[in-house]
């Protein structure tokens, strides 16, 4: 685990309820988690387990019902550029070019010379030199996601949150992008939290894998992945960890009626 001078993200006793017309739904229950500076943390869970809600609360788009999130020693209340987010859909503004989309990520007070330097650096970082003037619809899904990553990193956030960022990509592009994100993480040393339903992806990228259970969303297990990078998906230890995580999900489907309501 690489450690740099960044700040840790700590989540304590976090719970979240949604009110819908049939009553309340417990999305997250008593989440306690500490993410070390520079760590790559993967979160896996079936769809609907609240893992995306957790990211949305960390980034400030949703608010918690109870509990607390601290970034360093500052409580997280609202969205801020100290946390970057990459969504499943790249969410690039279709009317802006690649450069302008990345520049949109910059703080408004950034002077324009500084802004264009940052944009250039980040276009290089994600390997899109030559596509500065292209519009999002002219790019492939993988390239759009690269722009989205560049936009999220342009402010040098303390934490980068990735919400199933490769879910919409084809298998080949996905593996390619996983390697890219790993390379970016190693160069930028940003703390990253990845939410995914792909167990292989979680193990391939993460220093630790958080396994979440379904309704109510809780942390079931945290599996450390102490394998050297780059990791080999067919490696014996890799397969053992995958088996361990798979078991967690099979166990859960054996009692399908364990709902909170």
């Amino acid at each position, binding site marked *: 685990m690489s450690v740099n001078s960044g700040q840790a993200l700590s989540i304590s006793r976090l719970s979240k309820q949604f009110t819908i017309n049939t009553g309340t739904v417990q999305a997250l229950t008593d989440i306690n988690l500490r993410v070390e500076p520079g760590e790559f943390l993967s979160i896996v869970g079936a769809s609907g387990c609240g893992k995306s809600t957790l990211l949305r609360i960390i*980034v*400030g*788009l949703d608010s918690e019902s109870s509990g607390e999130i601290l970034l360093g020693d500052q409580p997280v209340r609202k*969205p*801020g*550029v100290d*946390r*970057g*987010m990459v*969504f499943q*859909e790249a*969410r690039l*503004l*279709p*009317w*802006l070019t690649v450069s302008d989309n990345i520049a*949109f*990520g910059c*703080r*408004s007070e950034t002077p324009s010379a500084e802004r264009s330097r940052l944009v250039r650096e980040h276009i290089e970082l994600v390997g899109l030199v030559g596509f500065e003037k292209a*519009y*999002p*619809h002219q790019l492939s899904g993988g390239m759009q996601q690269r722009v989205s990553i560049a936009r999220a990193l342009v*402010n040098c956030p303390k934490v980068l949150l990735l919400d199933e960022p490769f879910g919409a990509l084809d298998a080949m592009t996905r593996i390619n992008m996983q390697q890219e994100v790993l390379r970016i993480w190693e160069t930028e040393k940003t703390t990253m939290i990845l939410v995914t339903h792909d167990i292989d992806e979680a193990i391939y990228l993460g220093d630790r894998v958080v396994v979440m259970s379904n309704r109510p969303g809780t942390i079931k297990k945290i599996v450390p992945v102490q394998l050297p990078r780059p990791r080999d998906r067919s490696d014996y230890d890799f397969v053992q960890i995958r088996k361990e995580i798979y078991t967690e999900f099979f166990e859960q489907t054996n009692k399908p009626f364990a709902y909170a309501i």
Partner: protein
Amino acid sequence: MDYIDTNTGNDIPEAAVISEKAQPVTITRRGGYFLLPLFVPVMLLVIWELLSRKGIIKPTILPPPSDIWLVFFDMLKSGELLKHLTVSLWRVIKGFSAGSLLGLVTGVLIGLSPRVERALVLITGLLRPIPIIAWVPVLILWMGIDEASKITVIAIGSFWPVLLNVVHGIRNTDKKYVEVATIFEKNRWTLLTKVVLPSALPSIFTGIRIGIGIAWMSVVGAELIAASAGVGYMIMYARELSQADVMLVGVISIGITGLLIDYAIRRLEARLLKWNI
């Protein structure tokens, strides 16, 4: 007959371009693509011409296309047609600018603020169904028969489609983009200018296209009732003199001008909305 073909040959291909937003996908033979839209009007012209020549249609009621073409050409050469068209177009430009600008501002306010919408819901609901022509006598009473009343009619006509489409465009802003702006701590002004308005732009353009179409129709309507120049006036005056050919030249030039305006707006839209494929 020869020049009839050249005439239609000049404007029909534009109609073909206008009716295709995207590039044609299923066209395999390009010849058919350009000839097919020409076929029906040319056949109609031929039948019309033949019926007139045989005396089945009275030329005093409906002159043959060749006569209309000659009158059109004469009026074009003498500058009379352009004079009337310019007067009408100038009124459209003034009235449409006022009406669409007002529609844009009101639309943005309604689209952004539910309070403004609540405040205006009754008054817009009441005023919107009133036909533009119904305003003409009222406005003449208020403003007299000069330019002001006609420009106001055009402004009212173009106000509504712009307003409705601006509101629609703003309402339909994808929440996902708004979230992106929130994450990057953008203020309300940046959110409006960088996210909400650009995403509403295709819809705003639809409003502008419908609005300018209605503006063009309103000007003719207003001129039919009270004017001393303009295409509408030209048609009314020709009716008094029983000049059926001049009337038809007026009617057809209204159509051609409308087509050209729409074409110009589409070209502008294609240029400004490169990203919207």
